[in-house]
């Protein structure tokens, strides 16, 4: 060792350290309390209700749900089902099978599955009365009965009627194309002068053209 190096001074191996009796300072506890308050507020705003589907920057599941994109297809089907359940299911039954001798079935019906909604659009607007024959795609015997359906053209607007028809045309194995509100509007305009219910034979004579076609 050169003279420049001071030897490390010996530490007396003294007694073990002892501990004093002082208390925890009160301001530290107050600070803890403030932090607690801050923490609760922070979690209130930032914890998304402890829901595993809430990621920042959203604040709650309701906010996330409200931002889901509008899907017109699903929306229309939901609306149509709603109308059907409230108004049509009473007679045609929720399973679309109707009641023998009273209400015609909708499931598998050739009327429903027609390529264009020319006929059924008019039925829901002005009603139907007379003897109607429904051929079923399942191959069973045709159903004939005396129809007595009330008009709905004044109860619902074009959008709701189109939605209900779309629902019926796509439920229970039916394979019809959707009906748009524009088509319903055209049908309503074309049948504006009609008084009373439609007769099934008159409807069967109508060609199945696109209501929107000129």
């Amino acid at each position, binding site marked *: 060792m050169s003279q420049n190096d001071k030897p490390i001074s010996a530490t007396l191996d003294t007694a073990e350290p002892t501990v004093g009796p002082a208390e925890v300072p009160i301001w530290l506890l107050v600070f803890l309390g403030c932090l607690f308050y801050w923490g609760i507020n922070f*979690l209130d705003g930032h914890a998304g209700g402890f829901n595993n589907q809430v990621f920042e920057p959203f604040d709650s599941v309701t906010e996330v749900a409200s931002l889901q994109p509008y899907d017109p297809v699903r929306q229309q089907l939901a609306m149509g089902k709603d109308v059907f359940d409230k108004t049509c299911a009473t007679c045609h039954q929720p399973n679309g099978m109707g009641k023998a001798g009273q209400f015609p079935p909708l499931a598998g019906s050739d009327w429903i599955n027609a390529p264009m909604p020319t006929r059924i659009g008019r039925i829901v607007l002005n009603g139907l009365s007379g003897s109607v024959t429904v051929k079923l795609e399942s191959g069973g015997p045709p159903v004939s009965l005396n129809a007595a359906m009330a008009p709905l053209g004044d109860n619902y607007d074009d959008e709701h009627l189109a939605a209900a028809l779309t629902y019926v045309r796509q439920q229970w194995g039916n394979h019809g194309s959707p009906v748009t509100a524009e088509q319903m509007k055209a049908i309503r305009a074309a049948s504006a002068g009609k008084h009373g219910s439609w007769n099934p034979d008159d409807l069967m004579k109508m060609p199945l053209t696109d209501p929107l076609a000129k």
Partner: protein
Amino acid sequence: MSVTEAPNRAAASPQLSRTEIEANGAVPILYLFGGALVWLLLASVLELLASVKLHMPGLLAGSALLTYGRVQAASQSLFIYGFGVPAALGSGLWLLCRLGKTRLAGPGVVTLGTLFWNFAVTAGLWAILRGANTGYAALEFPRAVASVLLIAYLVISVCGIVTFHHRAAAPLYPSQWFVVGALFWFAWIYSTVMGLLLCTPARGVLQASVDWWYQHNLSTVYFGFAGLASIFYFIPKLTRRPLHSRLQAAFAFWMLALVGSWGGIPDGSPLPSWIIGMSVVGTVFTLVPILAVVINLRETTAHSMPSLDANPCLRFTCVGLLFWVIASVQEVVAALPSVGALTNFTWFTVAQRDLFRYGFLAMTMFGAFYYIAPRLAAPKSASPDSLWCPRLYKAHFWLTILGVFIGYISLLAAGLWQGVMLNNSANSFMAVLKSSMTAIRMSTTGPLLFAVGTLVFLLNFAQLLKNNCCPCCQRKGDA
């Protein structure tokens, strides 16, 4: 205060019987510490290599073994499992013996456990360099290696618990709570992650959540406890003043245990916002134990701070405490969402992590080692501290403290600048990179100085052992 004033409830003649007690644990504890130092040297050399590769990517790029990703993984794993845990164990076991006034239980078992531990770490290092890492940060050793580490740890900590159990009846000193807490804590967090990540991995992003939880617990709680045990013992002892308040120490211990384990989830990560929210709140709450510790020690040493020249242990311990406060407060600040938007995924978090590990844990363990080693290696010496070579000690101190400081400041600057540039999307990524390169180049001096300092310390330790014979020879000489 002279030796005769020491309270002698259980020990008859303090000086002799104390060292007699401790000589029992000399071999295992010195082995733990010695091995830890060697791994620390290797870890800092690898860190240096990684740092150089950051701005000289062509260096050794042709070697798969030494590609940046593997070297970085190896360096971090070696620090944690090669140095951090063994050093914590070594200082903890010694503290339990010293404060409990009892022999170390099962020294042969501890030595054997350490042998297996070091063997596993070697195997783990080789596995990482060969690409068999797990992909989880801080848990890169493959499952087989991790299992051996867990078993070795359990064996060693059981000896520690038994030592604690046999302590002389006396009120517990705060350091003992920290040591025992640490022993349990690592066993618990390590076995949890072994199960949830290595054995039956959790689903998807949960793995990341568990990994972040583990890293945070490892640093804040486990390494925090280990370092604080040392700090709470050496600062009052070497300044010859009583620790200011037992209640405050208990408060700090329980608060750190409670809230220190919440945290570590970066803001913006793909987890539901409640997990991130809890993490932020928990991290901010750690301000309370930090303050409790600082007040306690400030009051302890008020008006009587001796010249730090006096004692290497005190010097290193005080520096370690300072870095702990800085690193912990930085972690609190970085957890806040508004700050995190700037600093997440930048060098800022790396700076904090490195300061915590190399600044706080390493320095505190150095301090403990400077005190413990000569007393174990040369139990009969009247002035054990003078057994260290002063020149090497001074070199070690200045090299490591400068290394930590320069590395920290440059990474901090690099991180802040990178964050600012990155948050402006008009800056191309290359522009962001170029802006922080100068600071990155400067940060290489950090691990460089630290590695040299550790080498110097190893040399000092070697001369200590050589001059005083190895402890087993010493004991044979006694008998």
